[in-house]
């Protein structure tokens, strides 16, 4: 019996903005059951990578496979196999959280009662149950972020992409989200999370990838990276790899 395909395989991904090469021949794999931290300084190409992977942007070269489906040739199946939490949520301000999740459920072919049940459970889990029938335009940034997380998880995708997901969340909600991500990994799904918070990455992620100037500078478990660079913390490793690249 063949092994299940990796939730995400990126090979030779390149994306340019005019003459600027934002992502340069990037190779990356998110394995089933792991949380991969995606680190890098501002402008390193993290958000562009996530946007290419989610299908928002087109890549100029390279391949992206989501749960074994090629994003270019099998776009719809690849999209169905991932959930994306952007840095700024894509929401309809004049829908309620519940109406929005109903819509997302139908877009992802989640049966109606199941979508409703799962959406309500996710909102409650993220401490948004009481506000689920309020219009999203009345929500704070953190509450909107929670709706985006619930929308990304609604169809239980094998791959979850998150771009700076903890921004705007209070400590309680940040903890709830981290627990959710850990549960995803425990269930055998893959999680790729971009963050600036090195201590979060250190405690949450199974492996980390460090990018700078669009290129992969380091990839491995924390122990592996520490051994290679001789640093004692992720911060030491990060600063050294970024300095080398610069």
């Amino acid at each position, binding site marked *: 019996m063949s092994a299940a395909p990796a939730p995400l395989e990126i090979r030779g991904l390149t994306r340019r903005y005019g003459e600027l090469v934002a992502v340069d021949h990037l190779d990356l794999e998110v394995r089933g059951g792991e949380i991969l931290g995606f680190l890098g300084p501002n402008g390193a190409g993290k958000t562009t990578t996530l946007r290419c992977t989610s*299908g928002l942007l087109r890549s100029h070269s390279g391949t992206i496979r989501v749960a074994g489906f090629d994003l270019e040739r099998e776009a719809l199946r690849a999209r169905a196999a991932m959930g994306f939490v952007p840095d*700024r949520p*894509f929401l*309809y301000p004049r829908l*309620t959280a519940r*109406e929005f999740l109903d819509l997302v459920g139908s877009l992802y072919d989640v049966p109606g009662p199941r979508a409703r049940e799962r959406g309500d459970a996710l909102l409650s889990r993220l401490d948004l149950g009481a506000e689920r029938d309020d*219009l999203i335009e009345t929500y704070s940034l953190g509450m909107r972020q929670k709706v985006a997380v619930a929308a990304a998880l609604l169809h239980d995708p094998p791959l979850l992409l998150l771009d700076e997901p903890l921004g705007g969340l209070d400590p309680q909600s940040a903890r709830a989200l981290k627990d959710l991500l850990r549960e995803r990994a425990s269930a055998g799904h893959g999680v790729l999370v971009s963050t600036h918070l090195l201590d979060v990455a250190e405690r949450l992620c199974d492996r980390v990838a460090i990018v700078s100037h669009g290129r992969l500078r380091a990839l491995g478990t924390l122990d592996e990276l520490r051994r290679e660079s001789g640093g004692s913390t992720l911060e030491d490793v990060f600063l050294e790899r970024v300095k080398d690249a610069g």
Partner: protein
Amino acid sequence: MIWSGVLRSRRQLLRNQLRPGRGRWASFIGFGLFAWFFTLVLTTLAITFASLDPLGFGPTEGAAVLAAVMLAALVAALVFDLQHAVSSTLLDSDLELLHRAPITARELLTIKLIDSLPRTAAMVVAVAFPASLAFALVMKTPWWGWALLPVLLVGLWAAPLGIGLAIALLILRAVPASRVREVLAVLSTVIMLGLWLLNSFAMPRLLTDETDLAPRLVQSVMPASWFVTISPPHWAANALLAAHERHPIAAVGWALRLGLIAVASMALAAFAGRGLLEDMLARVASGEATAKRRHPATAVPMGSLRSLLMKDARLFTRDWSVLGDVLTAALLWTLLPIVAGPIAPMPAAHLVRYMLVALAIGLGYEVGARTIPYEGPALAWTRLSPLPAWRWNGAKWLGGALLSLPLMVIAALVSRFALSIAWLEWSEAIAAGLGALSFSLALGLWTGWTFGDPHWTQPRAMLTFPGRLIASGLLIVQAIAWVGALSVAEHLRETWPSGALLWGPPAVGLALTIPMMWIVQRVARAYEWSA
């Protein structure tokens, strides 16, 4: 605060908009259009002023024409640009930074007025300036008259803007900030279309009067004396007239009056800003402006098509500014052929037919084109969700049709009973309208994908500026094509099979819609989200 540094940063902001990758193409088109419009106003009015003498009119009538043009520019500035200045003052993305900086509310207001200057001064620079220039050139204004020109133009810019800002800030005390922008937007829509309609009714009647047109036009702009005492554009025109007549004291008097009102207007804005702006900015920043509204969802979620339609219905019905704008526009599009009546008299049956075709074409722009940028940032779901582009766009087309059809039905029923045409002619008119609607919605979707601005703030400006120009051109082309085709079909009625005018237009509309929708889904698939 170091003003030179602030001004430098604002200049850099403006300059950066012209850099590659930041809308340079759109900026160049904007500049090109501006130059074209400036030249058009200058030459048209220069010719107008030069032809007054042969018609037996003098500089007084010339000044009245100039004042009328300036007044139109000022009304347009109020309609289009005051809302922009208010939005800029209260909702710009850099307000949080400015609000935290150690500057007074009055200084903040000044910075935002500078930011909105290119937009708020556009009508003065593009219309009032070339009009004054044409008058001064043709009337051979002395050098000191030219020196008054900058004062007059600045006065024309500042007088309505200051008063408008002060009133807007006062309104904001009672209305949540997010809703005030919508109120202003709808108001601008209604005033703009109202003026357009008024103009559309007045002009054909002027054109069809028995006497010569030019004298009637000039007579029509001669102001009542009471109006001159309250109208800043007339003060500006009178200053230039006095300069032409070599009356420096009178010229300076008129200019001074305008200058004083401009200063008073800005002082009023500053006073309102000092008292109200801090409070308003705090309310906007805290999110207090938007009240909680609960909408319990009881129905079980449904399939993607019904969900998308339901979503659009909810968004439209909860956004009364956009809905009101669509309804207003629908009414005025329907009435458009009536205003052409005096120019080209036609049978009632044809009038009804063209009313429905005009409405259908207009709805392609009002509904079809706007339904894409109306999604806002959530348009990203077209790229994220596993829904084929053709299904998404099919739902958009269907949603547009479901919103448009009731408007078509109402227009058809009203025109049927108001104009008492036969049932067959009425059915043919509806058939023509349906054919035009089918294609115009598809073309509107293409326009929306190609030129939509998901970050729109003004309901009437959901497309980029070049997009609005191109969309307007497409409206005219569609109107000409449908009116031409229907006229030919009517002319050849005897040669067609029976009932051809009932099934022909919908068939033609559908035949045009299918390839257009194919193009739409290609454009949608190639769309890249960039926030």
